[in-house]
């Protein structure tokens, strides 16, 4: 295996280790969890073996910094952009849908190595539409996943950066933003939560027909009644 591949494998293992630790910590807070606790112990033990076999003496000591999940790019023509980012650049469509609250429709393409691009097309007036009007589209934001949002926010505050918007309402998805004015021009979204899992059955056409929408921070099929 090439060195880069091994590094990526180890980084993914460290992510999994932290996720399992988080899971076991939550289980611990619940008290006596019976078979769940034992299963958690066995998963952690097997993951420890996996980590060892990829040459990690202590996966818990692996760097616990934020991981860049995706780059958000604002586009005027979502179908044309999907052709470029999907067909021509070889991206795999992993999720997408409309988001009425934000006034956008989006597509997530994944690439070799795990990097992702989120294409955003405004569907009504709002911040993304204004971005398109003022800049003509292009890179809009960076989304990082962090194992500990509170620690990240504390770190920003310590560095004199102000979090402009934070949403900690849902345990599975907590986020905070740093304004482009404070980051030398780039909107930064920091998220603590589970990865956005790939969705099977999703297509560009279906998203453009508004058959998918973002609900509870994941793409879901629009219910027929609602569409009517």
């Amino acid at each position, binding site marked *: *295996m090439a060195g880069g591949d091994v590094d990526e494998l180890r980084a993914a293992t460290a992510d999994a280790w932290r996720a399992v630790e988080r899971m076991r910590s939550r289980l611990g807070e619940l008290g006596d969890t019976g078979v769940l606790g034992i299963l958690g*112990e*066995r998963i952690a033990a097997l993951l*420890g*073996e996996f980590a*060892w076999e990829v*040459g990690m003496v*202590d996966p818990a000591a692996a760097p616990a910094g934020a991981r860049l999940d995706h780059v958000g790019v604002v586009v005027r023509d979502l179908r044309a952009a999907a052709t470029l980012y999907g067909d021509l650049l070889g991206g795999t469509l992993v999720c997408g849908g409309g988001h009425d609250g934000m006034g956008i429709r989006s597509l997530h393409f994944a690439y070799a190595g795990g990097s992702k691009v989120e294409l955003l097309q405004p569907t009504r007036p709002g911040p993304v539409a204004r971005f398109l009007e003022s800049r003509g589209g292009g890179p809009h934001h960076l989304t990082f996943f962090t194992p500990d949002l509170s620690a990240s926010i504390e770190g920003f505050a310590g560095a004199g950066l102000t979090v402009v918007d934070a949403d900690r309402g849902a345990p599975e998805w907590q986020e905070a933003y740093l304004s482009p004015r404070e980051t030398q021009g780039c909107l930064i979204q920091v998220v603590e939560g589970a990865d956005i899992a790939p969705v099977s059955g999703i297509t560009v056409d279906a998203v453009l027909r508004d058959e998918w929408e973002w609900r509870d921070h994941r793409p879901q099929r629009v219910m027929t009644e609602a569409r009517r």
Partner: protein
Amino acid sequence: MSVANPVIEGMDEAELLGLVSRAAVAAVRRAAATSPLYQWFYARTDLRPERLRTLDDVRRHVPMVTKQDLLDFQRTLPGGGASPADPSVRQLHLTSGTSGAGREIYPRDGRDLAGLGIPGAYEYLWAGLAPGDRLMLTIPYSQTMAGPYFQETCAAAGLVPVNGFAGSTADRLRDLERFACAGISATPSYVHRLTLEAKESGLRLPSLKAIFLSGEPYGAAWAHDTAAFWGATVCEGWGATQTLGVAMCTCERGAVTVDGDGAARHAVLHGLDHRCWIEVVHPDGSPVEPGETGEIVVTVLRPSAQPAIRFRMADKVRLLPRGSCGCGRPTSCYAAGTIGRVDDMLKIRGMNVWPDAMDAVLLRTPVVDYRGRVYSDERGREAVGVTVAFAPGTPPESVADLPSRLRQAVKREVGISVDITVVDPGQMPEQQFKSRRWRDDRAVREAGVGDGRG
């Protein structure tokens, strides 16, 4: 070349040694901080684990422990070293106790159980077995660590274990054929017996790819003839209760090779260095040079409920230079086929048998002396014959039931079945060395089995 783990096997020697060094230092610190055994043991030394940085530091500053140290420690605790209150313990493994010195207790936690089969999977996968292949296990499941170990190793390699614990040799041969087994795991003595019976019956097993030996030394000629007869690679693994599975094993090149002049010679065992750091030392603890034989000392690098840190195994092996195998793997190397004991322990039908323990059973009135012989009978079975001499003047009625009483006592206290012959003291067979009562004449030690197909 078969690959069991592309990450570890893809490392160069320096990278692997770096991993071993970091892991060994961490293992010593962890044991000193959390293991009751090592806390007790190190309290009697001036070891400062926080000062250790390198493998050389560990070699120079960390004292070796022995089985006797473990037994002494376990006697100090009501739980025998396995605190009944420790909620992380998931299994307790006890050694057989046939040494007469006591039974070692090995608590196992979830991490131990998760990792138990992984090192052995290297042996099977390197030998060319693939997930889904069937492997016959002949080592009884009930026997201390061995049974769980072999089951877990099959699971880790994705193999299907075919349990051949029960039944006759004919049953096992039939099952090897019926289930199209790709491998069999057995002692050399048992493989010898299978081979003789297969020859007699004319059975051939085209599906058999590899024969996995463990538990006792064997001759290169015997291994070569066995490989030729079966058309399979003869492989070997070495491990112990303390090492939580295999710590060294052969690769796809097998345990025996043929020189340019046609003579069979023992090939190479690879150390699974990333899991178990192996040292080979002189009796005074100093390291042997490549080419020399010495005692195996192990440091298990994975976290464990019962760590083994510089544990003297009382097994001996010949150290070889790295790269001796020629397969390109970066591991340490040792001579296959030659692992034996530094003491006089015998391995008989998979049981550890110490002559001292036999002495304690046999040398009681009216027996004044005895000689023991382990050999292969005409069907290749391991047999033990003991000739005892009774004191002059012993009443005939005592002599009459002596064989049956001694047979039962040996079975009960040492765990093996023996044939007893009673003679007058003057009829005791001569031994080459008067001080040694035991001879090992098993066929697998030197001779080949002859008329191989290869």
